[in-house]
């Protein structure tokens, strides 16, 4: 199970980074979403993988580590806030600049020419 979760985290990270490297605003947003999935899951598994042990007192003998769960819960909501802000920045960038490239280096000028 650990190996499966680890490969899933690795894949999510790789996909997220690949999308970010596309250097267009929308793939960057999706890429960051994938990255935050990866980060949330890896934070969560720092409490180790246990089944049938929800950290609710009185429902069992052993409990999963509640601390990473609480941290990830807030992280999920914060990453929603981040995605929403980025989305709006992407729209505003697209409307104000007329394109949705994210790099303003030499490449962008070359592309525009």
């Amino acid at each position: 199970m650990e190996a499966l979760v680890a490969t899933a985290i690795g894949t999510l990270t790789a996909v997220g980074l690949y999308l970010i490297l596309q250097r267009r605003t929308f793939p960057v947003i999706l890429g960051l979403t994938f990255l935050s999935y990866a980060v949330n899951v890896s934070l969560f598994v720092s409490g180790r993988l246990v089944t049938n042990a929800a950290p609710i007192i009185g429902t069992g003998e052993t409990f999963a580590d509640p601390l990473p769960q609480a941290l990830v819960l807030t992280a999920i909501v914060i990453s929603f806030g981040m995605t929403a802000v980025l989305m709006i920045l992407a729209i505003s960038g697209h409307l104000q600049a007329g394109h949705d490239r994210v790099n303003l280096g030499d490449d962008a000028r070359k592309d525009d020419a």
Partner: protein
Amino acid sequence: MLWGVLLAVALATTVLHRDRVVALILTSLAGLIIAPFFAFHSAPDLALTQISVEVVTVLLILLALHFLPATTPDALPAPRRLWSAAVAGIAGAGVGWLAWAMMTRHHAFPPISEFHLAQSKPGAGGTNAVNTIIVDFRGFDTYGEIIVLGIAALVIFATIEAVLRSPAAMQRLAIRSPRREDADRHPMMFAVATRVLLPMAMLVGVFLFLRGHNMPGGGFVAGLVFAIALLMQYMASGYEWSQKRQRYDHHLVVGWGILIASLAGVGSWVFGLPFLTSGFVYVTPWPLDTFELATAAIFDLGVFLTVLGAVLLALASLSRLALRTGDAPQSRAFDIDPTEDR
């Protein structure tokens, strides 16, 4: 099984990401697969939050896609893509290895969670250890977080305001390539169904809120469920129609949320206790069973209102942009009037 689907979905996104709607759907699928993963590994709170956040995120991104090109135009040249894939692959392998190494080793120090589990009931009065950490033990953290969320919502509002005032942006918006619009933009079935569902969804929200301290649920999830119920009204019946029935300003909802959370924190000063100390009593009013009254519930109400207000403010900001694009404003609830004789 789920693992295979997740991998397939994630990899398909890299191949198909140029069609943005498809990419968005694939991304949300990945998020929806993570929710049962949380549920399976003893984190019902996380599963609930993940599902509801996923719904809100996808709805907002779908709305936002209205203002962005539907496809990513020219792909990067092949060597560049290969290079990106190589970098991403190496980083992914590294992170995956790190996660595997972390999971298969023992804790270097004993985790402090034993304290939270032991103190959840006697110290905070709730049996859901995750929720008591959020609203009691680590309340300050959560307090900071809802402020961040509130600020994010205000940033969204301010950015849209700036776009609306920029002549160049408005011009671009006006000449945006026309999209095919459905004739029936607010299908009657959808509108009726969402209106019937609204009170039920709100009931579910209240239920999740009230049980939060003892069972999976809490202010975050309840706020998101409420937000989804209201978002559905906006989707089904149009922004104008819903806005007319909106009695409270979204900014005010965010502000009140943070204010209530602050008051719940400051309130403990009256008793000479540090900021955000929570207290609780058990009461047994005659016909009912014993239940718990906690100051943490006031704090959680603040969390609830902030989450709700922030989501709706983001939506309202996007809709203001949509109203300026010359899309015909929709003031009636249905496109078709069922009472009209035809």
